[in-house]
């Protein structure tokens, strides 16, 4: 018997060609996918230009997604996309996604079947940790790491230690993956998992949909985590078979694996939760809010909460109701497929009749790019992932992070509230 490893450590060991790795060890691992977007790829392309090798390691294992300032918000964004487009063309990158095919990268790649269980993925975007929901090791890096990954197909990692989250119980009607991860970040803080894996386990996981799991893994970085990973169960395998033709590999943490800390989270005790400005750890349950927080805008979308489950929930709340006068409600399906499904299911009709607008997929408002910038003093309830100072616009604007259910209910009432 070898020494015990966490799920993350097992994936890393296999990709480094080692029988065993331990926390703190520096390794070089083979990559299954290297990702970049329209903000980080131009920088990576410039860095790659300085390398002695000029070929990509595998044109099928690089994904370039134009999603942040797309459709181009200004001339500079247009030039950046052009730079990436030319690069993709020159190197015959198979997974280049431009307007018409693009979606928000972390919703798009799993949907296209480009990330599967057991993969090691790096992406020049901090929310690359999303694919942990599929049982993959995925983590955000910078543009230089992306450039090195594109050329060598390898990346260096310090093997992380881990925190174990034992998930039990079943969430109540209006509690979703967003409330779970906000609760966790509120509990451990924005650096509570710094440099570490967040490993989710327990019999409550079966009560979380794949979209819930994507949301939870997506925000591991908001607790400082290196990755946030779920075990592979029947639901995962169903998802993988529906979306991908690639073979996948199931890894399991050893029962005696060592964790730095362990927490138990009973889903049945969680309530709709909101992170107040200006850190995701400033969480309050909605029923704790004593002074009503009036809002000017509600955003429902992003790599965190722009999936079909999120839109269905928002539609359920908005059906037959109307967005409060004076509130702008902006809904962004994360991919073209989700957008189309939302049209076919009648969700888009519900949104428009309720006075919301529905946008083409883009990261836009989440990072203050376009499609919903806040003016001085404005407040926004948002299903996005960060509420830092000035993130969505003016430096004295405020962002309140919440689930699609809370954002939709708040849009109707004009102040932060949960559906009743």
């Amino acid at each position, binding site marked *: 018997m070898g020494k015990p490893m966490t799920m993350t450590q097992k994936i890393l060991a296999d990709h480094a060609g080692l029988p065993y790795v331990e926390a703190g060890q520096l390794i070089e691992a083979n990559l299954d996918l290297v990702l970049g977007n329209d903000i980080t790829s131009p920088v990576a392309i410039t860095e790659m230009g300085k390398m002695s090798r000029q070929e990509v390691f595998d044109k099928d294992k690089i994904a370039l997604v134009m999603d942040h300032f797309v459709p181009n918000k200004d001339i500079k964004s247009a030039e*950046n996309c052009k730079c990436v487009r030319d690069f993709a063309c020159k190197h015959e990158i198979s997974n280049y996604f431009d307007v018409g095919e693009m979606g928000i990268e972390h919703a798009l790649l799993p949907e296209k079947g480009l990330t599967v269980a057991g993969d090691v993925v790096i992406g*020049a*975007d901090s929310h690359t940790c999303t694919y942990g929901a599929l049982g993959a090791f995925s983590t955000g890096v910078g543009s230089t790491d992306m450039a090195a990954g594109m050329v060598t197909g390898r990346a260096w990692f310090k093997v992380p230690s881990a925190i174990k989250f034992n998930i039990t119980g079943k969430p109540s009607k209006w509690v979703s993956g967003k409330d779970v991860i906000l609760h966790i970040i509120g509990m451990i803080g924005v650096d509570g998992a710094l440099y570490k894996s967040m490993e989710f386990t327990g019999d409550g996981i079966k009560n979380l949909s794949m979209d819930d799991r994507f949301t939870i893994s997506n925000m591991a970085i908001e607790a400082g985590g290196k990755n946030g990973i779920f075990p592979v169960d029947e639901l995962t395998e169903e998802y993988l078979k529906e979306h991908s033709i690639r073979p996948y590999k199931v890894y399991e943490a050893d029962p005696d694996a060592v964790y730095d800390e362990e927490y138990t989270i009973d889903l049945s005790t969680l309530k709709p939760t909101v992170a107040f400005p200006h850190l995701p750890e400033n969480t309050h349950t909605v029923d704790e809010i004593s002074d009503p927080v009036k809002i000017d805008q509600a955003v429902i979308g992003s790599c965190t909460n722009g999936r079909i489950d999120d839109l269905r929930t928002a539609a359920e709340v908005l059906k037959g109701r109307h967005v409060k006068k004076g509130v702008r409600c902006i809904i962004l399906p994360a991919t073209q497929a989700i957008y189309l499904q939302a049209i076919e299911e009648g969700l888009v009709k519900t949104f428009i009749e309720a006075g919301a607008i529905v946008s083409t997929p883009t990261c836009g408002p989440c990072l203050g790019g376009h499609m919903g910038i806040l003016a001085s003093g404005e407040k926004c309830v948002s299903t996005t992932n960060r509420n830092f100072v000035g993130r969505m616009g003016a430096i004295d604007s405020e962002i309140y992070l919440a689930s699609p259910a809370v954002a939709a209910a708040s849009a109707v009432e004009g102040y932060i509230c949960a559906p009743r």
Partner: protein
Amino acid sequence: MNAKGTAYKYGDNVDTDVIIPARYLAIQDRTELATHCMEDIDKDFVNKIKKGDIVVAGKNFGCGSSREHAPLVIKVSGVSCVIAETFARIFYRNAINIGLPIIECREASERIDDKDEVEIDFDSGMIYNRTKGEEYKGQPFPEFMQKIIKAEGLVNYINGQ
């Protein structure tokens, strides 16, 4: 290798959105980009930083986005080193990869005040506070990272392999 300069002090969780707001991320020219360094946390930053000065912060410096523009604008502004109690992991990687010296030291992060004169010896990991006459032991880099730093970044390191 040494760094020496005036320290400018910031708090915990200085995020990449305040280091370089996303509204400027379409700018590719690094000198132009650097004119917005720390704009949303300290409007005066670009005016007061002299070449060699040192940024001192608390926990989780550089949290948030993976944008490499963040360590880059700090480097281009002339900052010779960032001292923090801890760094967010992507910022930590990026700083090493682009050759911005950083050092983790809780004591230095707590003891150094705004405008103290500070000197750092990267080989020993020692931090000297010339204003207060104190010294602090920083966390030295593992050997592998030292190689990347000595090559002045990941690109040169890979080219040299």
